[in-house]
């Protein structure tokens, strides 16, 4: 049976018009003649009947992509949250057809939802309407930080593992290597996704991405990136590190006893941008000249609480332990908003302590989970403290 030549993508025609087309074609067929394709007034070629004894097309493995899409769509819709979302990823690992079908479904489903499905989603913008809740766990023993997507409101439940980062010192220079694999945190690893580097005092940080943030981006040439030979997965993707953000800390000069000031400028991913170029085949087009917009974020100034004698920010219950590391970032420049103007009342990234080694991280569009994590790491790295 060769349905493959007969069916068009169901996205092009509604079910009703498919019926009409099939009917028009079939009405002209004589019942005694077994002709596979008869031209008719319809532009839809009629479906050909299975040839006698032919097995091809009669099994799951030879199913048409659009029919497979029907099944993938239902799986994706029903496995909306982690841990069930594992099944969506598993489907994408079965074979080429299943991978393509599932990635297409995920791509098309709920734009603006900031749903995390594949690792590539970690470099896509978060949700537009409400922040995603995450937990960061610190392990002082091995200088490692783990990022999880919260699955319950409890601060003691970890959730879905997203990224890990390990702090390394190179002389006067400190780096955090960020990876998809909690057990393999090196720049030469296949799971390497980027890094954060800082000066000695931790006042200026640079965020790097292992993948180009937009087409035509050039990798930075820094000493460390030339020191290793990275394993290239795809020859189309240049090796190296691409600068995607800067974070700086300053003492609050106006109120000398106040909390430090943070300024971040980051290249936020555009919603349609697909950062996971590794898994795209060579036929996929990369958006020309689509440089992601630069966002400028500043921390919201806490208010001095005379009665409690401390600086206070309203973390809405998501931060429960006072710490100089806690912050809320809002945008002064936001490329995702009309005119690029940021809403200084809208908190795009919130970070704070809830336990000895447990912190919450809440982020939303235009920040991606990767950028949010890197910015939060700077809070651990800076040595500027309140006086």
């Amino acid at each position, binding site marked *: 049976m060769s349905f493959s030549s007969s069916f068009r993508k169901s996205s092009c025609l509604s079910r009703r018009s498919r019926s009409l087309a099939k*009917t028009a074609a079939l009405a002209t067929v004589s019942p005694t003649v077994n002709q596979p394709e008869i031209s008719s007034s319809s532009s839809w070629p009629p479906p050909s009947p299975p040839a006698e004894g032919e097995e091809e097309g009669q099994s799951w493995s030879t199913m048409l992509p659009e029919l497979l899409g029907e099944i993938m769509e*239902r799986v994706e819709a029903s496995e909306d949250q982690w841990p069930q979302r594992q099944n969506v990823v598993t489907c994408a690992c079965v074979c080429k057809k299943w991978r393509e079908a599932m990635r297409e479904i995920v791509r098309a489903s709920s734009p603006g939802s900031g749903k995390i499905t594949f690792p590539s989603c970690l470099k896509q913008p978060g949700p537009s309407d409400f922040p995603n809740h995450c937990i960061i766990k610190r392990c002082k023993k091995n200088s490692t930080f783990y990022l999880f997507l919260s699955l319950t409101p409890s601060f003691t439940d970890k959730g879905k*593992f997203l990224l890990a980062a390990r702090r390394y010192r190179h002389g006067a220079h400190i780096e955090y290597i960020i990876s998809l694999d909690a057990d393999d945190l090196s720049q030469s690893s296949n799971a390497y996704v980027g890094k954060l580097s800082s000066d000695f005092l931790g006042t200026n940080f640079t965020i790097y991405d292992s993948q180009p943030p937009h087409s035509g981006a050039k990798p930075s040439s820094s000493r460390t990136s030339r020191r290793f030979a990275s394993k290239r997965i795809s020859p189309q993707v240049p090796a190296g590190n691409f600068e995607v953000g800067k974070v700086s800390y300053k003492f609050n000069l106006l109120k000398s006893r106040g909390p430090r000031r943070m300024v971040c400028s980051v290249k936020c991913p555009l919603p349609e941008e697909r950062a996971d170029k590794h898994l795209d085949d060579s036929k996929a087009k990369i958006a020309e000249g689509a440089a992601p917009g630069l966002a400028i974020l500043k921390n919201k100034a806490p208010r001095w609480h005379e009665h409690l004698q401390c600086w206070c920010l309203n973390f809405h219950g998501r931060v429960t332990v006072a710490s100089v590391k806690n912050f809320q970032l809002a945008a002064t420049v936001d490329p995702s908003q009309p005119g690029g103007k940021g809403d200084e009342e809208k908190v795009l990234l919130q970070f704070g302590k809830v336990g000895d080694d447990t912190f919450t991280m809440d982020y939303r569009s235009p920040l991606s989970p990767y950028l949010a994590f890197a910015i939060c790491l700077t809070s651990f790295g800076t040595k500027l403290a309140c006086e």
Partner: protein
Amino acid sequence: MLLSKNSALESKDNEIFEVEESIAIQSELIKTMTTMVNSKAYVNERNQMVPEARCRKQANYHVEQNNKIVDEELSDWESKFFEVDMDDLHELFMAANYLEIESLLNGVTKRVGDFIKACKNVEVIRQTFGINNDFAAQQEEEIRKLNSWNHI
């Protein structure tokens, strides 16, 4: 039961089924055909025989049961109806898609989705559905990375 017109449907292997019209038109394809060719008595069609019989059975049951029984019994009946092997499920899926019977298609895709969820890993899915791993060596590395990240 009200008397209603019957449609005669011929399947690819020339077997003729007499089906109540109200049931026959649950298939969008047949509904369109009867509208267009204006021939309620005899409609030409090609299809596989076995799924045809199953479709008719199911459609028939649906109409009767909608009138009589509660949802619980219907869903029990449906679970039993879909307890078939992968090959039969495949035929049901292809027939439901060809005949464009929404309710049957929903039932089959749900069942297939349940199968997928029950397979806890990629290898089991491949075995259940008879699918070969056709990733290139270069892609295998990425898939392995994806698989190892895919945990809680």
